């Protein structure tokens, strides 16, 4: 209670703190009820368990409980070579597995001071940005589901399906790709792939307006999200939030631009604007619906809108990558051997995954098997702010806030 974060340390049952000034006071003190939301609840995005302390419809405190999807991924990483751990990174953020592959591959490459070919670099950008689109599509669709509208979910999945088809053609898998790997990519693109990708982008572009019509500008959607779960800029920084959650609060940070050189070098020569509100405007916001008047910077609506903008931004990046990739005449190059030895030492690298800044830490004792493999989950930090956001909200706002953080439990529990 005395902590600035205000998260209770003890059990909720033992410690009913009603003297907290931030909890709304009522003239009639009614009985409180502890409610378990999850781990089998439909809108906790996997196996998250939230303990809500409610007074009627009003939630006075939310305590997230995690660990239901813990699969010892990091420990397993200490028994496999760097490339063999790639499939385990797939299963962390299974909605953006390409980006997870990339994060680990870059961290190991940083330790080994390995540079991939130009062709592999552009292909990685292409694939990673497509992965970002597919992840944001799930986040957007599932967010509609959290707010009680089912159809946008399927519209989003319809488009994501086409991305998965593209990925399947490139690497044979639809969810856990292991495509980007240490030292490059497992295979080059099949012939005709780029054409299909361009067709997809052309077809996808007008669909985004549909999403805006169904969700972003929908009156009920705005009522449910604008001004709800406001995450102030300072709190977002304090809690280590990242990705769209951080940018939704108006912090101008994107690892693709501000990250370490091995990562930003990948995006050398690419033109993109970080999707963040500056001076009351989003980049190129004339092309998008206006910000509703009751939306506050840092609320659910802004987090959602940043994701929508990033979809367009990623499409733009994919187009640029297609041009650059097809201009490259040099071969893709082979990835490193499975048993390629790493130099002794350690390396930590954060990359901009769709959910936020995903960090991978690798410690090596000179063999091919990492002495320690560690993942810094962006969803974990983003989730930790939940109990702050949900203070005094209604029950219906809890799924709205959880959904706007766009967490994935596979990454939190690892």
């Amino acid at each position, binding site marked *: 209670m005395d902590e600035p974060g205000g998260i209770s340390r003890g059990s909720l049952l033992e410690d009913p703190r009603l003297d907290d000034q931030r909890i709304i006071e009522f003239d009639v003190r009614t009985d409180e*009820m502890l*409610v*378990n939301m999850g781990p089998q*609840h*439909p*809108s906790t995005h996997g196996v998250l368990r939230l303990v809500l302390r409610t007074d*009627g*419809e009003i939630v006075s405190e939310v305590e997230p409980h995690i660990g239901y999807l813990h699969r010892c991924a990091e420990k397993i990483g200490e028994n496999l070579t760097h490339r063999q751990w790639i499939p385990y990174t797939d299963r962390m953020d299974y909605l953006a597995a390409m980006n997870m592959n990339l994060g680990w591959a870059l961290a190991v490459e940083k330790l080994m001071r390995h540079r991939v070919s130009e062709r592999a670099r552009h292909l990685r950008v292409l694939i990673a940005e497509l992965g970002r689109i597919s992840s944001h599509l799930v986040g957007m669709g599932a967010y*509609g*589901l*959290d*707010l*009680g*509208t*089912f*159809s946008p979910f*399927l*519209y989003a999945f*319809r488009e994501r399906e086409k991305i998965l088809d593209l990925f399947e053609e490139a690497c044979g898998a639809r969810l856990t790709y292991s495509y980007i790997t240490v030292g490059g990519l497992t295979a080059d693109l099949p012939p005709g792939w780029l054409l299909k990708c361009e067709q997809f982008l052309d077809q996808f572009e007008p669909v985004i307006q549909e999403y805006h019509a*169904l*969700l972003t500008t*929908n009156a*009920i*959607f705005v*009522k*449910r999200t604008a001004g709800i779960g406001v995450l102030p800029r300072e709190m977002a920084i304090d809690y280590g939030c990242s990705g769209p959650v951080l940018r939704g609060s108006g912090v101008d940070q994107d690892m693709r631009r501000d990250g370490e050189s091995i990562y930003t070098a990948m995006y050398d020569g690419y033109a993109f604007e970080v999707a963040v509100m500056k001076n009351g405007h989003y980049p190129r916001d004339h092309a998008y619906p206006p910000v509703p008047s009751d939306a506050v910077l840092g609320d659910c609506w802004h987090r959602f809108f940043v994701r929508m903008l990033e979809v367009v931004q990623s499409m733009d990046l994919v187009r640029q990558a297609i041009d650059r990739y097809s201009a490259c005449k040099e071969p893709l190059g082979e990835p490193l051997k499975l048993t390629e030895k790493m130099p002794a030492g350690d390396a930590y690298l954060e990359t901009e995954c769709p959910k936020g800044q995903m960090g991978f830490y690798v410690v090596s004792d000179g063999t091919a098997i990492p002495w320690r493999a560690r993942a810094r989950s962006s969803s974990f930090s983003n989730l930790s702010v939940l109990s702050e956001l949900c203070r005094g909200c*209604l*029950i*219906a*706002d*809890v*799924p709205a806030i959880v959904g706007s953080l766009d967490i994935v439990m596979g990454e939190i529990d690892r």
Partner: protein
Amino acid sequence: MASFLINTLGLPAWLAWTITATVSAALILNVMAVGALVFIWAERKIAARIQDRLGPTRTGGKFGWLQSVADGIKLLAKEDLMPEGADGLLFRIAPYVSFCASFAAFIALPFAFDFVGQRLNVGVFYVVAVLGLEVFGVILAGYASASKWSLFGAMREAAQVVSYEVPLGMCVVVPVMLAGSMDLVTIAEKQAGWFTNWYLFHDPFTFVIFWVYFTCAVASVNRAPFDLAEAESELVAGFHTEYSGLRWSFFFMAEYGSMFLVSALASVLFLGGWNGPVPIASLLGLSEGTGDTAGYLVRLVGCLNLILKSTLGVVVMMWVRWTLPRLRIDQVMTTCLKYCTPIAAVMFAGAMLWSFFLPGGLVGIAGRRILSRPAGEIREGWLKGPGGRGRDVVSSRPITEAAMMPAPLHSDDGRRVSR
């Protein structure tokens, strides 16, 4: 039918009435059950079309039309679970309370001129009142389930439905006022003729109030975007979280029955009931009141008319459900108390003044003479003085008498018995 049994077969009156009631009830039950099956299938197909997919395609050959039946069999075969700590009696009784309320309201619903389970001169009041009982089933279910999510669902339902009864009642009163009767058959009869006679087009106020009615009706039967009682993403399944198998399907049937009922009520009150947009029958010189085959056919077509209109209402509800996000509980209450109720009240006053000063209705002003007279009759009734007022606005027969005494509607040769 009852008089036929008494007069021709010589059965005692109580037996004759029992048989008549049983037959009527069985017919209505079938209408409701089959209706629910059809609507569940329709919802699957409509939702599928909205969502860019096909829906059931194989069950029962083309279009998956046996899907609901297959669903029903599956539900029958399911284990009937009751959570530990649940209140057994209330838990078991709750689905039937909901279902019975929805079913009982069908009794007073006229499908066509004489196609009505029991003609009541307080039909509107009866339907709205009995439909309101459905909430008890939901509250019982939530209370008895021993589940916190169910309890939340029940509390929401109680708050929501009780609040929406107020604007709903106000909307329903307007056609009653225009027709000068609470009898649903009379209200529909007064809208006979061209579609301009429908109360929807009577004046601007009734036009607005129809939409208010529809909104409130959607809210009172717990359909999206007002489906807070079973809000899936918040309350798992709300009040029926703990229900399974047949008991659950009774809640489902009640929901679809109520959906159809409020749509049918909208058709009767605002959309001319069984009267089509063009009075084909009367243009052909046929009358729906006669007992011959032609009259029967006219009534059958009228019945189809009403079902079509009600189905349209149900389809609109489905369309809304698969498009819009859900409102929050405070927003639902705001919609009711800050928008629907004041609008309904103002429109009620407006419609009242309109029918007093311009009794011909909207089209009547344009000089068309085909429009209905009821509003004019009301005015005449009012102008007669205080004695005439009460008689014309409400049915002249005291409520208790008609409600208590089941009067035969028509003799068996089809002629209407004068009441």
